[in-house]
C-alpha cells in the first residue's frame, strides 16, 4: 500500500540519566517496559499502525543494542518494499567534520540528505521515550485540514502540574500563539508531547537557517518553534486524549508499569486493533508452579513462577524461586529471584541474579528502589 507521504523521525539519542544504571549499557528508548516491550516499540508500532512506512531512528548514546534492535524492521511489520527503518547515527561527511547531534533540531538537520532522498511532503518528529498509543494519520489529517506549517500534539494536564511542561498558549481554533517552556505561571494547560508534524519544505528552510545561527541551541522547543511563531507561521495544537507517560525516572517507569495492572487502564495493550509489536523472543509460555501464588500481576512468556507474586510485572524469562516474594515490583527480563528472597517496591534490572534470602525495598518507601549492577565510580 502506498503510504501517506510522511516520514517519521524518532529522536532516540537520549541518555536517560535519571534512570541511572538502567541506562548504563543501553539508551533510554531500549529500556524494557511492560514485561516484553522496549520503550521504542511504542512509537515504532504507532508508526506501523498509522500506515507510515519510512521511519528514521536517530540514535547516539550507547546505540549498539538499539541500532541492531530497530534495524529488524520486520518486528513491527515495517519491512516492506516501500519503506523500512533507517538507523541514523551521527557520521562523518565529506564536507564537514564528524559531529555528534547537538540538539533535537540538529539531529534532523544532519539528516537532511536522508530526508531529501525520500522527498516526503510531511515530517513527523517523535521522541523515543514515551509510552502511549496514537494514530499519527489522524494528526496528519488535522494538519492538512488546518493548512498548518506545523502541528504540535498536546495533552491537557492538571493546571497545577503545567509548570513542569512545555506549554502552548492557543487562540481561536487552537492556533498556537505562544510557547513557554516550564512557565512559573502557566496560562494554559496544553502540554507539548514532543510530537510534531512539519510540512517538510518549510522545515528544511528553517533548519538550514537555524544551523547557520551560532546563537541557537538547535532544539525544536527552544529554537525552531519560537522562530516559527515569530514569523507568524501557522502552528496548531492537536489535542490528544488518552494514555501518555514520560518514563524518565525510576518512579515514573515503575508507575507506568503499575498502570498495566489496572483492568481499566487506558493504554490497553490487549486491544487487537492497535497492537504494540516487539521482538519475538522464542520463549516457552509462562509456567506457574504447584506452590506458587500469583495475584494481580502482569506476566509474560518464559517466566517460571514457583514463589509468590503480587501486584507486579514480570519480564520475559524471569524466574521466581520457591518461597520468594515479589510485591509491588517490576522485574526486567532474564532476572532470577532466588529462594526466599523478598522484593518490595523495586525495579530489578535485566539479567540480575538475586541471591537466596536477599531483601530489597520497603513497603511504603517514598521512592522506588532500583536494583541493578552498580557501576564503577558510583
Amino acid at each position, binding site marked *: 500500500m502506498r503510504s501517506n507521504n510522511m516520514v517519521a523521525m524518532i529522536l532516540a539519542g537520549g541518555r536517560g540519566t535519571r534512570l541511572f544504571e538502567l541506562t548504563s549499557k543501553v539508551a533510554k528508548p531500549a529500556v524494557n517496559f511492560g514485561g516484553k516491550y522496549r520503550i521504542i516499540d511504542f512509537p515504532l508500532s504507532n508508526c506501523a499502525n498509522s500506515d507510515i512506512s519510512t521511519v528514521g531512528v536517530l540514535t547516539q548514546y550507547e546505540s549498539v543494542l538499539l541500532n541492531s534492535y530497530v534495524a529488524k524492521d520486520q518486528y513491527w511489520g515495517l519491512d516492506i518494499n516501500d519503506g523500512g527503518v533507517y538507523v541514523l547515527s551521527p557520521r562523518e561527511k565529506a564536507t564537514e567534520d564528524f559531529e555528534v547531534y547537538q540538539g533535537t533540531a540538529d539531529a534532523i538537520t544532519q539528516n537532511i540528505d536522508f530526508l531529501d532522498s525520500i522527498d516526503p511532503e510531511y515530517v513527523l518528529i517523535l521522541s523515543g521515550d514515551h509510552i502511549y498509543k496514537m494514530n499519527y494519520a489522524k494528526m496528519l489529517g488535522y494538519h492538512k485540514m488546518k493548512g498548518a506549517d506545523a502541528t504540535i500534539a498536546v495533552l491537557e494536564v492538571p493546571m497545577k502540574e503545567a509548570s513542569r511542561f512545555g506549554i502552548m498558549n492557543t487562540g481561536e481554533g487552537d492556533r498556537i500563539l505562544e510557547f513557554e517552556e516550564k512557565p512559573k505561571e502557566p496560562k494554559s494547560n496544553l502540554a507539548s508531547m514532543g510530537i510534531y508534524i512539519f510540512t517538510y519544505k518549510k522545515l528544511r528552510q528553517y533548519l538550514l537557517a537555524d544551523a547557520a545561527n551560532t546563537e541557537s541551541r538547535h532544539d525544536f522547543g527552544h529554537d525552531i518553534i519560537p522562530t516559527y511563531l515569530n514569523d507568524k507561521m501557522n502552528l496548531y495544537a492537536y489535542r490528544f486524549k488518552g494514555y501518555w507517560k514520560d518514563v524518565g525516572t525510576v518512579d515514573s517507569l515503575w508507575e507506568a508499569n503499575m498502570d498495566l495492572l489496572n483492568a481499566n487502564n487506558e493504554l490497553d*495493550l*490487549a486491544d487487537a486493533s492497535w497492537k504494540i509489536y516487539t521482538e519475538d523472543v522464542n520463549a516457552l509460555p509462562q509456567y506457574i508452579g504447584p506452590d506458587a501464588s500469583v495475584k*494481580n*500481576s502482569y506476566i509474560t512468556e518464559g517466566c517460571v513462577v514457583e514463589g509468590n507474586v503480587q501486584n507486579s510485572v514480570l519480564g520475559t524469562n524471569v524466574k521466581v524461586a520457591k518461597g520468594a516474594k515479589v510485591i509491588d515490583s517490576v522485574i526486567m527480563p532474564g532476572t532470577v529471584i532466588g529462594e526466599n528472597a523478598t522484593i518490595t517496591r523495586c525495579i530489578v534490572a535485566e539479567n540480575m541474579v538475586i541471591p537466596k534470602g536477599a531483601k530489597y525495598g520497603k513497603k511504603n518507601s517514598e521512592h522506588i528502589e532500583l536494583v541493578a549492577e552498580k557501576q564503577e565510580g558510583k
Partner: protein
Amino acid sequence: MNALGIINFEGDTAFIDGLGEYRPVPAVSFLGRYRIIDVILSNMTNSGINNVQVYCKEKPRNLIEHLGNGQRYNINSKRGKLQVLYGEKMFSSLVYNTDIANFELNMQYIQRDSNPYVLIAPSYFVYSLDFTDVMKKHLDTGADVTLLYTSTNEARTSFLGCDVVKLDSEKRVTSFEKNRGNNKNRLISLEAYLMKKSLFIDLVEKATKTSSLYWFKDILADSVEQLDIRGFQVRGYVACLNSLSEYYRNCMELKHPSVSALLFKPDWPIYTQTNDSCPTRFHDNGTAKDSVIANGCVIEGTVDGSILGRNVRIGEGAVVKNCIILEDAVIGKDVYLENVVVDKYAQVKNIDRLTSYEPTPIYVKRLDRI
C-alpha cells in the same frame, strides 16, 4: 546439510479426535503457543536443512498461514525454500490420498531440488534431534536407508498403530510390524528416514506400481530384504501425538519445566509464529497453579494443572482443572471444567460443570457456545 527435508503427513493411525476435524495434526495447537509441526521443522532448520517440503493431506489453509515463507523458522528467504504441497487433485476416495500419491503428484519439485539426499519425517512424533548426527551415521554405515527409532517400555498404551521394528546385532532392520499394544517393550519406528534422493524416487515409483493404496512405509517394509535399512536410536524425550488421549497425556506431562526442557533446549530452539499478544494479566482473584499459560490471557478465576493458549479468558469464579484451552476461548463466570479440551474461539458460559472421568478428555468444538 545437503538433504531436502520432507515433512510427511500422518496416516490413519494418527488422528486427534475433535481437534483433527478442523486442521491436520501438524497444525494442532501445542503447549499454548506452538503447533505440533514447529518441533520437526525446527529440528530440520536447526540442522541446516534449508529446503523443506511440507506435505499436507487436506485443509492446507491453516498450515500455510502458520508456516509463512519459513523465515520464522530461520529458513533463508533467498537461498532456502519452504513449500506446502498437497494433492492439488480430487481423490475419488480418501483411501487413495496416500503419501505416495502426493509425492508422485509433486515429483517434479522433488526432482528439481539439488540436494542429493532426502530426510523424510512426519510431525506427530516430537523430539529434539540434530539430523547432522544422523547423516554422519548414515555415511559411516553406508546404509541405503537410515531409520530413526525409539525404545519404549510403554508400548501397551502409547505408540499404538505405529511401526515396530526388529533389529539384528548390527542394527539392521529385519522386519516391520504394527504395534497393537500387546507387548510393553518395543522399538518404535519414528517413520523418519534418511536416504539418497535417487533411492527415494525409485521407491515411490515402485510403490505406485505395486498398489495405489500403498504408503511409503509399506514399500519400505516390502524392501526390507533388498535394502540395507539401519536403525538410528533417538535417545531422550520422544512423544507420539497420535490420538486425543495421547495428545492430552503428553501435553500434561510437558507442562512441567523439567520435562519441557528435554524438548525445548536453549541451544536448539523450537520456532513458531508470534502473534504479538501482550503479557497475561492476573486479576485480584485470578490464580494459577501447575499451569502453562500463553500470552494475552486474562485470568479472573482459578487455573489448575492446565494449559492455556493465547488470549484465553477465564471468568470470575471459574475453575479450570487439568484442561487444555486453545486460543481465544472464553470460560465464563463460575463455570467448572475438569479434564476438558476446549477448541479455539469456543465460549463455555451457560453450564455449571463439565467433567470427564475417563483418561480421554471431553472435547468442546471450535466456535462452540455452551
